[in-house]
Each structure stands twice: as structure tokens, then as C-alpha cells.
């Protein structure tokens, strides 16, 4: 019923073609990518290096003082394996300067601030280096809303947004992302000891099956329960998808005129390209 195996050769060809096509259509040759040491950014940057050549790929490492030393080490491993450009911007001074005024801020606010700080650095380097910001969000986290709006969810083009997390791992193995990166526990690394699966309360293996059936195969929640899935779990997943819909759309515009952006003014994103 659920088969999330990929034809990796085909997907690799589609995604490298996509990066090459979208970057050049926009009039660029380069990309800048925030490389965290995790599997998503490692895969994104590997595909970019293959599509555009390593000389056209800039990895930006943006650690915070609590970032795990392992993350930085893995990010450097990705950079050296692919022979791409890299630079490091420590975000500790700006994040700490801000929260000096709000010392009570919780993990969530601090994590979101870090993600948005990184976003501003990536887009500044987009202008500085003349490269598009390449996204690293996968389909699982986009559907669950497990990301920071205008933070890590922000990019110019995203090659991974239609691949579930478990598929990202398959393709990462296929393109030879270092095994230590593919096999480690996924973590947003926004605070010490954080892991995605502990925070979400389920594993990617479990949730990808449910998302695949709900989204790709158009099962109703009741169909999944009839198939033997745990009702509470399925409803929780469905709720997360629905509750985070706003994160996947542009801000809603109040309709006043005869022709409103995105509503009845509809052009392809590739308009004129």
C-alpha cells in the first residue's frame, strides 16, 4: 500500500535539471545554501554541485554558540567532499544582542529567531555573490509545518520540497552524501539535545507513510483508520497539515479590485523566463 522507494537515477536527473534550468532562467549561475551538517542541506548542495559545478556553489555555515560541534564538523565534511566554496558566519552576536532585551524568551522564540537570522544572511549573500538561495525543506516538514516561516522555509528555489524525509535519505545515499550524515538522528539543532523525532512525537518512517496516503494517494482519515492505522496519530498528523496551511501560502490579500494578485491575476512563476 505504501511504497516510498524512489527511482533514484530518474529523480537525480530531474532535480539536477531543475536546479540548472531554474537558476539560469532567472539569469544566475550560482547558488548559496545554508549548510547545517544535516542530510537535507547536504543533499541539496550535492545536487547543486552536480548541476552547476562545485565552483558555482557557496555553502554558508551559520552556527550559534549552542550548536553541536558535530553539526559544524559534518557541514565542513560536506564542503570538503564536494570541493565547494564555503564561509562561516557566527550568528551568536546578533541573536544574543537581540535577546539581551528579552531574556525570558523560550526555546521556540529563540529557535525561530536563529532561523530568520540565517535567512537574512543567506539573502544578503545572494546579493553579495550573485547567486540564488537554494532551499532545503523536504515535503514532510513542509506538510507538517515543521519549519520557521520566513526562516528555513524561505528560499528562491527548492529541489527537495516534493521528497519525503525518508526519500531524502534514499537519494542522499544514492548521491553519496557521507554515511555519518545520512544515518544520524535528524535535529534542527536549535537547542542542545533537540531531535526532530522527540519533538514531533513520532518517527519520520511512521509519519511519511501517513502523509503519503493522505496527500499523494488521497486517502481520507477514515480510510486510514479502516486500514488499521492508529486514529489518534492519523488525526494528529492531519491536524498539523491543516493548521500549517498558511505557512505554505503567500499572505492572504483582502480583495478590493477587479483583479487581485494570486486570486484572479494568475501568471506562471516562470513568466517571461
Amino acid at each position, binding site marked *: 500500500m505504501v*511504497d516510498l*522507494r*524512489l*527511482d533514484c537515477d*530518474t*529523480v537525480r*536527473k*530531474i532535480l539536477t*535539471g*531543475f536546479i540548472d*534550468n*531554474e537558476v539560469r532562467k532567472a539569469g544566475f549561475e550560482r547558488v548559496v545554501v545554508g549548510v547545517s551538517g544535516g542530510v537535507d542541506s547536504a543533499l541539496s548542495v550535492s545536487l547543486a554541485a552536480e548541476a552547476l559545478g562545485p565552483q558555482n556553489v557557496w555553502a554558508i555555515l551559520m552556527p550559534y554558540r549552542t550548536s553541536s560541534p558535530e553539526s559544524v564538523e559534518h557541514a565542513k565534511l560536506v564542503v570538503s567532499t564536494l570541493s565547494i566554496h564555503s564561509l562561516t558566519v557566527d550568528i551568536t552576536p546578533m541573536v544574543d544582542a537581540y535577546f539581551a532585551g528579552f531574556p525570558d524568551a523560550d526555546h521556540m522564540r529563540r529557535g525561530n529567531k536563529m532561523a530568520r537570522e540565517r535567512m537574512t544572511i543567506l539573502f544578503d549573500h545572494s546579493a553579495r555573490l550573485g547567486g540564488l538561495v537554494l532551499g532545503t525543506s523536504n515535503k514532510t516538514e513542509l506538510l507538517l509545518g515543521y519549519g520557521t516561516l520566513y526562516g528555513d522555509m524561505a528560499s528562491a*528555489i527548492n529541489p527537495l520540497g516534493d521528497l519525503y524525509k525518508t526519500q531524502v535519505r534514499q537519494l542522499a545515499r544514492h548521491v553519496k552524501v557521507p554515511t555519518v550524515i545520512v544515518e544520524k538522528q535528524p535535529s534542527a539543532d536549535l537547542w542542545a539535545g533537540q531531535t526532530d523525532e522527540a519533538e514531533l512525537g513520532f518517527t519520520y518512517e511512521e509519519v511519511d507513510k501517513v502523509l503519503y496516503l493522505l496527500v499523494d494517494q488521497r486517502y481520507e482519515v477514515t480510510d486510514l483508520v479502516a486500514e488499521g492505522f492508529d486514529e489518534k496519530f492519523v488525526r494528529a498528523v492531519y491536524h498539523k497539515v491543516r493548521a500549517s496551511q498558511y505557512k505554505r501560502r503567500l499572505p492572504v490579500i483582502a480583495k478590493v479590485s477587479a483583479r487581485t494578485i494570486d486570486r484572479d*491575476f*494568475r*501568471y*506562471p*512563476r*516562470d*513568466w*517571461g*523566463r
Partner: protein
Amino acid sequence: MRRFRLAVAQVAPVLGDVEKNLALHEKMAREAISQSVNLLVFPELSLTGYFLKDQVPSVALTAEDPALETLRNLSQRVAMVVGFVEEAPGHRFHNAAVYLEGGEIRHIHRKAYLPTYGIFDEQRYLAAGGRIRAFDTALGRMAILICEDMWHPAAAGIAAWDGAEIILCPSASPGRGVGQAEPFQNSNTWERVIRAYGDLFTCFVVYANRVGYEDGACFWGGSEVVGPTGASLAKARYLEEDLLVVEVDAGALRRARIANPLLRDERLDLTLRELQRLIREQGQMPEQSGEEPGGIAHG
């Protein structure tokens, strides 16, 4: 029908840029001429690109438009099927394909089935065509069915029963559902459909798909020419530009129709009676006749 050389131009048109696409067509036509090709088939909306949305009126042409003059002239040396947005009388915009031959417009087909589901939104922007006709050319009797038209077997049946020896299918099929064996779920279905049509209608089927990306969707290519026994005669590469050239052998059509006289045994009278019955029966159902059972007025 005579023996001739056919080619499919598996190209990647530029979205919304008729001028650049005209130059691409002219280049491909000259290449085909240099390879002694008699008929060159371009994909669906080859002059405009596919996901046009609100650009539809801006890129529309009439078939007589001076912009097509060079292609019409080139058709004296190689016949061509070209996809474009046709602005018809009454300012209706059609997803159309024109058959150019000997410097003239031999036939225009307007896509009859406009997909409006999933990734597609054609009925929002385009008017549906109302005719499926076979037509005579210097090379044989042909019919054009554009992409989704082929997913309605009656459309292919009408083309074949109208005498088409070759069904030409310009297409802009975005690849979706990457599985484990075939490149895409839908490419797999397409290949089954065109081979089955070749077999069932004992005719040649020319599937001309495009490549390239629009708004992140990739068109899968894999253009193919199928013979009148359903065998694949030539197949273009997946996902890459290609010029697929193949010899079309009229003798193969004759032999297939001797071995399998399916068209001879067709029962149009029977089909018509049963269709009339279906229309009669289903026409009485409110959802078919377009009436709301409760007579509720729409706002």
C-alpha cells in the same frame, strides 16, 4: 498512403515567447529538411509553452497570422504540425495544432478535451474544440488529437473510423509519480495507450511530447512512433531534447489491416444506437442535464 520519412521535434519551448519559439521551429525545420524528412511533428503548444495561465490572450494567433509566414513557406519543403494558441472568431482561445503542407494550412485541430484537474487548469483559460476529423495530405490520411484527447478512446476511435492511417498526437505531458522501474507513472500509461491504439485501430500513432521545465514541472519527452500492429518503431530519449526520425512504411499498414480487419468489421450503426440510448437514459438524470433538482439559483 505512401512511404515517407517522419520526424518528431522533441523540443523545450520557451514559456510565453512566440518569437524565440518561431526561431526554434525554423531551426528544427531546416534540420529536418537536411535529413530529407517529409513530415515534422512538434509538441502541443510548441509556439507558446504550456502553463501559460493569464498569458493565453497575449500569445494567441490566428492560423493566417503573418508571424507564421516563414513556417508556412518552409512547409513547401517539409510538412509540419505546429502547436499554438488559436484566437478564433468571437475571441475564443483554443489549444490548437495546425497541419502545414505545400505552403498552406491543410487542417487545424482544436483540443476537444481540456484537462482541468490535478496539475491542469485548461478550461479556465481555453475554449474546447468541437470537432474530430481525419484529413487528407500528400502523405496519407491523418488525424490530430492533442494530448488529453487521446485519453478518451472514443476520440481515437472517431479518428480511425474517419479513415486516419496516422494519428498525430502533439503532447505536453508533465512527468509525475516517479516509481521504481519506469521513469514516471503517467509515462508508463501513455506508452500502453499509444501502443494499444496502434494495435486496435491498425494505424500509425505518432506521440510528440516535449521536454524542459515550467514552474518546476518537467516534461518527460520519450516521444514515440508506433506501427499498425502496436509495435514501437522508434523512441526518443526521456527528459532530453531529441529529433526522432523514422521511415513510415505504407506496406506495414496494408499488411496489418489484412491480418487484423478490425476496421472493416466496425459496427458504427450499433455504436450509434447504443450511444443514443446512453444519451437518452443519462440525459434524464439531473446531474447530466445540468439542472439542479431543488431549483436553487446560483449566486
